[in-house]
């Protein structure tokens, strides 16, 4: 059995899901997409948080949740209208609740007065009459609930039932044994509308003895014209009971809208219909506590025969529609459909990571096996090759399965953004809505963790600098509310995240001016609009200097770009003055496994990420012009591509000298410029398991990571972008330095 601490963690996980439901539900309601189900789901979620908080001892959480829950209850009962203002208070409450949960989860003390403003807003909505009861009763006062004893035996022995009151009265004034009554019960069409429920009446009849009923469905129309609030059914049947006629009639005493005929069988003339007398409509559904003792519940000992009533009675809809579960009446406006629930289980991430590691080793071992088989003489290896192919196939499937276990929907990162936009927009006084798309797009856990920071910065920028103030927008003929669209999709083996806004676009004049001031561009350099836009990603260009100072932390786009590139991703930006800005970044789907091209430089083997390779060729000598030293230029379909000899860059004796054959790998340096890296041999394209070496060696410029090849040897995975930088840096000391650190590793 799990420990208390583990259950506490489970509770916080539940809270996380719950908070998400609350926020989503309230957002839907604000957009007009909410239904009865929505408010119920939000209410339930807050109730659950409150309940769990009580169990695990987070009292202040309980306090706030209680007020929140009470307000939500008022909304779902219809006592409080869900206007935009009201929903905004609820959304703010959701934020406070979320913060309280986080603080409690971290085990910290809740600051004095935290959330008070919002709590007061909630209490105001409630009209200040409830929200009191901080005291936790362990029992309800004044509730005449007498617990029913459930005896295991089937006996009718009444002596066990001390202190239990049954209604209708069974004890006194029984006549001589059993009687049979024929009963005809016919509700008027509007009986349900007046709050009476035939089902409860029939149940009370059933309590008196053996009841056999059949329903008369003559008045039942076809489904299209059926109105659930109209009572169409009536019943006839027989009741064998020891009760008197008066007791039977008592059941129907306060029910006006029906016709009821009770005829005693074999006891003389039928008595005429009695129904429709009481002036006061006491709805049977509602037990008014001050009046009858509440202990009117089914005695478990009564001999109740199985009757067909439950099935027949089902078609009647209970008078108040909203609280019953299942089969909600079709909504009149479009509602967000409930997401199908998948069966899930909780696993510690460590366990998955360990298995992923194991499979990584398996892949390597299998590659080694493949190598050996490859080298065997013909004929010997046929069967072996066949089996090995199967092993390869299974291993690949195993690896794919595991990677999908590690895959998470980006929605988990996206879901924090609406709140970020809400809060930042309020701070800067703008009206902004956030649209999300592609939340279900999945990506490896290792990437998910790297998404939050860049995304947060980009979106904050958009709110702060992108979208204009409401009056500015109106003056420009735009809607008062700006839109930011956040989307994710799989494209070309990567995940592409796009943030686009319909704001004012990048102010190219200001940017150019700042860049000149900071010496990032020459005073008279002429740049295209695109080039100016991309200036904001240069190191040293802080957003705090552009337009406003509000996001003033000075974390610029350059840091964002670096973060993304470190992970092997790319960032691009387009902006149109007056129309808006779009920022796109593409990330690999996982950091754990990579498509690589194995190459040889001299006697060393390296791996290059396929994602960086544009094409590989063996160009004829005539196309290569050698310039200074070991740099060259390649003529490629009319363009000139600079060449860099990897042998030199990596400080290895290379066979690829000026006369021999060589392999050129064209890479894209990320900003569109091409670079040709010259190697000695292309060994093939394969999936490699990426193993980080940073822990052992620290970051090595030019080397991203390492992997183990099929022959068991270690190959370094080259960081192509860094190599390009190093190549363009003509300082030989840098290269020597690189050579030294690489010598350590190799």
């Amino acid at each position, binding site marked *: *059995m799990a420990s208390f601490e583990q*259950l506490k963690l489970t509770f916080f996980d539940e809270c996380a899901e719950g908070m998400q439901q609350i926020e989503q539900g309230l957002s839907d309601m604000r957009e007009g997409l909410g239904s009865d189900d929505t408010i119920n789901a939000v209410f*339930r979620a807050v109730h659950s948080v409150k309940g769990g908080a009580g169990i695990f001892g987070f009292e202040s959480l309980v306090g706030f949740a209680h007020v929140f829950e009470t307000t939500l209850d008022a909304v779902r009962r219809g006592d409080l209208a869900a206007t935009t203002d009201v929903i905004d208070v609820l959304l703010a409450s959701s934020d406070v609740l979320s913060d309280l949960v986080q603080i409690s989860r971290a085990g910290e003390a809740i600051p004095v007065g935290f959330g008070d403003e919002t709590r007061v807003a909630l209490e105001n909505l409630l009209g200040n009459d409830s929200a009191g009861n901080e005291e936790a009763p*362990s029992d309800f006062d004044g509730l005449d609930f007498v617990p029913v004893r459930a*005896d295991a035996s089937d006996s009718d022995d009444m002596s066990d039932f001390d202190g239990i009151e049954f209604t209708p009265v069974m004890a006194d004034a029984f006549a001589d044994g059993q009687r049979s009554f024929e009963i005809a019960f016919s509700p008027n069409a509007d009986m349900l509308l007046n709050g009476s429920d035939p089902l409860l009446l029939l149940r009370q009849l059933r309590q008196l003895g053996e009841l056999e009923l059949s329903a008369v469905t003559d008045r039942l129309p076809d489904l299209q014209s059926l109105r659930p609030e109209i009572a169409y059914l009536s019943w006839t049947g027989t009741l064998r009971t020891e009760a008197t006629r008066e007791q039977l009639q008592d059941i129907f005493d306060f029910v006006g809208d029906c016709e009821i005929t009770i005829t005693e069988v074999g006891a003389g003339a039928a008595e005429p219909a009695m129904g429709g007398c009481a002036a006061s409509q006491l709805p049977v559904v509602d037990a008014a506590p001050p009046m009858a003792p509440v202990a*009117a*519940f*089914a005695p478990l000992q009564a001999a109740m025969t199985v009757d067909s009533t439950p099935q027949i009675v089902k078609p009647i809809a209970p008078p108040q529609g909203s609280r*019953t579960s299942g089969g909600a009446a079709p909504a009149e406006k479009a509602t967000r459909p409930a997401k199908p629930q998948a069966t899930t289980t909780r696993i510690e991430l460590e366990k998955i990571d360990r298995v992923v590691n194991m499979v990584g080793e398996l892949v390597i071992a299998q590659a080694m096996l493949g190598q050996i088989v490859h080298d065997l003489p013909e004929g010997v290896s046929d069967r072996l090759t066949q089996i090995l192919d199967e092993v390869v196939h299974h291993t690949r499937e195993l690896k794919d399965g595991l990677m999908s276990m590690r895959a998470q929907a980006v929605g988990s990162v996206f879901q924090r953004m609406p709140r970020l936009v809400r809060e930042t927009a309020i701070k800067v006084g703008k009206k902004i809505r956030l649209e999300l798309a592609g939340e279900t797009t999945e990506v490896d856990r290792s990437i998910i963790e790297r998404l939050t920071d860049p995304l947060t910065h980009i979106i904050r920028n958009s709110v702060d600098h992108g979208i204009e103030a409401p009056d500015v927008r109106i003056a420009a003929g735009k809607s008062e509310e700006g839109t930011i669209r956040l989307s994710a999709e799989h494209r070309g083996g990567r995940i592409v995240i796009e943030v686009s806004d319909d704001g004012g676009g990048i102010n190219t004049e200001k940017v150019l001016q700042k860049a000149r001031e900071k010496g990032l561009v020459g005073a008279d350099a002429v740049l295209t609009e695109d080039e100016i836009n991309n200036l904001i990603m240069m190191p040293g260009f802080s957003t705090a200097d552009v337009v406003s100072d509000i996001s003033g932390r000075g974390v610029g786009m350059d840091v964002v770009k670096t973060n993304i590139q470190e992970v092997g991703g790319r960032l691009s930006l387009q902006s149109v003055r007056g129309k808006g800005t779009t920022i796109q970044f593409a990330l690999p789907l996982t950091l754990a496994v990579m498509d690589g091209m194995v190459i040889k430089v001299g006697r060393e083997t390296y791996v290059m990420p396929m994602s960086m390779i544009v094409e590989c060729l063996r160009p004829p000598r005539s196309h290569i012009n050698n310039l200074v030293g070991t740099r060259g230029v390649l003529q490629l379909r009319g363009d000139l591509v600079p060449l860099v000899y990897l042998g030199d860059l990596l400080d290895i004796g290379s066979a690829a000298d000026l006369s021999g054959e060589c392999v050129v790998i064209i890479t894209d340096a990320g900003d569109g410029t091409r670079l040709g890296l010259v190697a000695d041999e292309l060994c093939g394209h394969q999936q490699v398991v990426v193993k980080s070496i940073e822990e052992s060696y620290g970051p090595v410029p030019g080397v991203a990571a390492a992997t183990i090849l099929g022959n068991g040897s270690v190959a370094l995975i080259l960081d192509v972008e860094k190599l390009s930088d190093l190549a363009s840096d003509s300082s030989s000391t840098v290269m020597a330095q690189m050579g030294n650190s690489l010598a350590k590793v190799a």
Partner: protein
Amino acid sequence: MPNAVALKVLVVDDQESVRKMTAMTLEQLGIRHIHEAENGKKAMEIASLQPIDLILSDYYMDEMDGLDLLRAVRGHPVVRRVPFILLTGRGDRELVVKAAQAGVNNYLIKPFTAQVLRQKIEQVMGKLS
């Protein structure tokens, strides 16, 4: 005089943490056979297939709430006699009243201690041994 060790209890609540806490509390009373369900519908499935001696159910659940479960139990030819205790939050008087009408045997306010749980169970089933 039910024997705690032999009792089979069904705990119904949509929150796993609450279910497990309730189960832990039941274990403190010596009860060993504990079934769990996350809503009324799943609870009915279990109750109609397994021998169940007691049902502890929350009210607010998706798919079929506690009251509907109670009614379904009371209407089921085999299961109707099973003792049913409703778990409620503080301030839920209305709910207890409604549940009483529908045939509940007792109620418990969350959060509850093992002593209170024992008390309420014994009120319905007799002294636990």
